[in-house]
């Protein structure tokens, strides 16, 4: 019995009592084994530390992020073809500020429930946007209508069972058309301590749109917003891509020189307090002013909306979902290619800012040189900064920051309030 070549699995035993006994025994053994291995590893490490040798290599847990499937479509900053392609694409006229973006917002035919409220808030987010009632017009007719009136984008909010569930963004006059699934919508009034946005042109943060497809989607989103933000307004709109889900957030921020006010609630404020106990502190505080939603790309169509004879640039197909380590819009959250940036994070001169817990952080030392950037726990070898210019109206300095991250050069344009 003991020398059985193939031990009986607990699942093969029919008697429940025996089975559970067997199972418990196996589990105990496994646990003991694991503990033993851990102890051995510990001892080896201690021994090598005593002897002054190289410590044995630490085991790195396997996560989705570090076991991602490699993707050759990542946009590299040294790719001249990419930039030539960008110059030739449909968004370049808007992004080079030759045309001011003008957005038409409409709905599906039956719009009720949270749809109208969502559109109202969306119109506050997107400057120069106009709502047009859908009526019973076909979407192709609306595209024509918008083209005749010089709109640069068309946004359609689709509602299903009184709940917005899809977003269609059409770049005019000749495409592309992106179809997103919309989920997790939270309107402003449902956000605690929400603020009310001003009518300034917002700054835009686009995170992790690094593959070729992501780059295109990023540029498309960028072309909805004006390219010359009012930094005075201190209003920031974020599209953060993480594992192919695009999270939308809308914030107001403020730089404060006070020490501990309401900001003591803030986790970041605490950390910064602990860092430098100097009396004069500039703290950045954020206030969310909704809406909040998540987008997922379903299709990207070449040309304007045409379901019958349209050609697709990218379609999500079920046979792409054979791996959980394959993503289409970004390579990985801590390995960045270049994302299209409009104007990036706004930072105070001496302070650390974190725009929400999941957004990346950038720290700036007092001297104006950058010391650290990117996600927490992620070390960057070298950061270069160059002074870009001084905005005459808003007392802001612009810094052009670049760092090398896993062989990829990351570039960020930072506006910083001038030091006192």
């Amino acid at each position, binding site marked *: 019995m003991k020398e059985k070549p193939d031990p009986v699995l607990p699942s093969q035993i029919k008697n429940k009592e025996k089975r559970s006994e067997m199972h418990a025994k196996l589990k105990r053994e496994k646990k003991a084994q694991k503990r033993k291995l851990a102890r051995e590893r510990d001892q080896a490490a201690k021994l090598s530390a005593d002897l002054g040798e190289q410590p044995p290599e630490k085991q790195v847990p396997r996560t989705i992020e570090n076991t991602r499937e490699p993707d050759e479509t990542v946009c590299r900053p040294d790719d001249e073809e990419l930039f030539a392609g960008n*110059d030739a694409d449909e968004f370049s006229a808007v992004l080079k500020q030759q045309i001011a973006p003008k957005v038409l917002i409409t709905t599906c035919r039956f719009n009720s429930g949270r749809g109208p409220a969502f559109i109202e808030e969306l119109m506050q987010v997107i400057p120069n946007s106009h709502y047009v009632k859908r009526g019973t017009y076909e979407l192709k007719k609306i595209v024509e209508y918008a083209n005749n009136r010089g709109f640069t984008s068309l946004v359609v909010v689709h509602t299903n069972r009184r709940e917005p569930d899809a977003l269609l963004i059409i770049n005019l006059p000749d495409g592309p058309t992106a179809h997103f699934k919309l989920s997790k919508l939270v309107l402003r009034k449902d956000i605690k301590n929400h603020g009310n946005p001003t009518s300034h042109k917002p700054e835009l943060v686009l995170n992790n749109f690094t593959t070729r497809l992501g780059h295109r989607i990023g540029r498309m989103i960028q072309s909805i917003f004006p390219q010359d933000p009012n930094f005075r307004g201190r209003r920031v709109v974020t599209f953060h891509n993480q594992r192919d889900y695009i999270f939308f957030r809308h914030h107001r921020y403020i730089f404060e020189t006070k020490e501990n006010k309401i900001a003591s609630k803030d986790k970041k404020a605490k950390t910064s307090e602990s860092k430098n106990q100097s009396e004069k502190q500039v703290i950045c505080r954020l206030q969310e002013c909704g809406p909040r939603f998540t987008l997922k790309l379903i299709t990207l169509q070449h040309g304007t909306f045409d379901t019958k004879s349209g*050609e697709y640039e990218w379609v999500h*197909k079920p*046979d*792409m979902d054979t791996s959980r380590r394959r993503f289409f819009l970004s390579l990985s959250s801590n390995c960045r290619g270049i994302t299209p940036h409009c104007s990036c994070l706004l930072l105070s001169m001496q302070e650390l800012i974190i725009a929400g817990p999941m957004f990346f952080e950038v720290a700036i030392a007092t001297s104006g040189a950058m010391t650290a950037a990117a996600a927490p726990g992620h070390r960057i070898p070298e950061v270069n900064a160059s002074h870009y210019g001084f905005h005459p109206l808003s007392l802001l300095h612009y810094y052009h920051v670049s760092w090398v991250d896993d062989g990829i050069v990351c570039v960020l344009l930072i506006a910083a309030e001038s030091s006192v």
Partner: protein
Amino acid sequence: MPRTSVVESPGCPPLRALATDVLGLIKVVEARANPAGVAKVVETWGTPDASRAVLAASLADRVVDPVLAVARNNGVVELLNPLNGDTLAAVNAAGPAPTDSAEDPLATLHLFRRHVPDSSMLGTFLTCTEKGKAFVKSVAKENAASDLAVGPSSSWHVCNSGKVEFSSVDADESYVMFGGKGIELNLWDITSCSKIWSAKSPRGNSLQIFTRPWFTAGTFLCKDDHRKIVACTNNHQVRLYDTASQRRPVISVDFRESPIKAVAKDPNGHTVYVGTGRGDLASFDMRTGKLLGCFVGKCSGSIRSIVRHPELPLIASCGLDSYLRIWDTNTRQLLSAVFLKQHLTAVVIDSHFSTEELETKSTQVDALVEAEAEIRKERKEKKNRSSKVDEGTELVDHDDSAVETYTPKRKKSGDKSKGTKKKSKKQQVA
């Protein structure tokens, strides 16, 4: 535990393909025997410029003097050397005025494969604009620099209204068919420039609903028979026409739900490969109209062009997802995928690519090259004998070029050869 094993692709055999894109670049993709089965971009020709986007490409796939023709967005048809990318000639095909090309861009292009016996001709091509103006033009070798085309040229109107989307020339290169949005499939005789057949749209359905013709792709089914035509519609149908029997389709099959954008025939004479606007690729047996199978594998963008290799059992497809993919036609497995960064418009396969050339390239053994040249010369002579044209000087000239194109340092020797050629011509003139 997630699955970590990957299905290994068997890799593709030695192959050379040229892909063109919307920025006007031509990229050469080669798979070699040495690191087996990996296709890579080896060369990129041209500078990125959206106004010179390539709309159509055609390769005269010959052993001697292969020529690649590309139709650009600005109405220019360029003839290139597919071995080193030198521009041999650029002809303004659409019309003398530059505005013509903006309103009426070229839609299709075909470069005739039959070799003209006297070598003063570089090639003859057939092109058609979107509004239906078809041209046949010949390009002579002498005026490589100038924009003028000489030689036999003809033009005719394919249609009065509608938009031409494709044309296809049969294997003997004496018939051409056109089709498009609002244009019924029609067959023309190239030599007499006359329409010899046109299709009739199928009868309306039970509700008497009639769909307007919108053909998006088509090809002649057999090599030796110009009467069997496969045409694909925007209405996701694959149709077989037999021009000898009737004007309505003989077989009509539906495939999925998006417009079919590309079709290619198999040399076996009954199989066709179709690609759709959502990136589905499948093969059909047109004798029965049955779907043989789909080519599956992460193909996510519209397929613009499919090419079958003349000898090896493989096809290459490319399209808006910026990948050039090479598939095995027997197992329908993906052999290789190359990311080419831009939206691709056309792909052609150079079937006379062999690894021997590369070996000689690497070892630079002149003897081998010469031997190869000898073989080529022999072949050439056979051809010439068949066409009963034997001029000593011409032959020498030819052999010259044949050797030059296959010598290891192609570009440099090419430059030299140009000089020598010119000299020899001058001598002839003198």
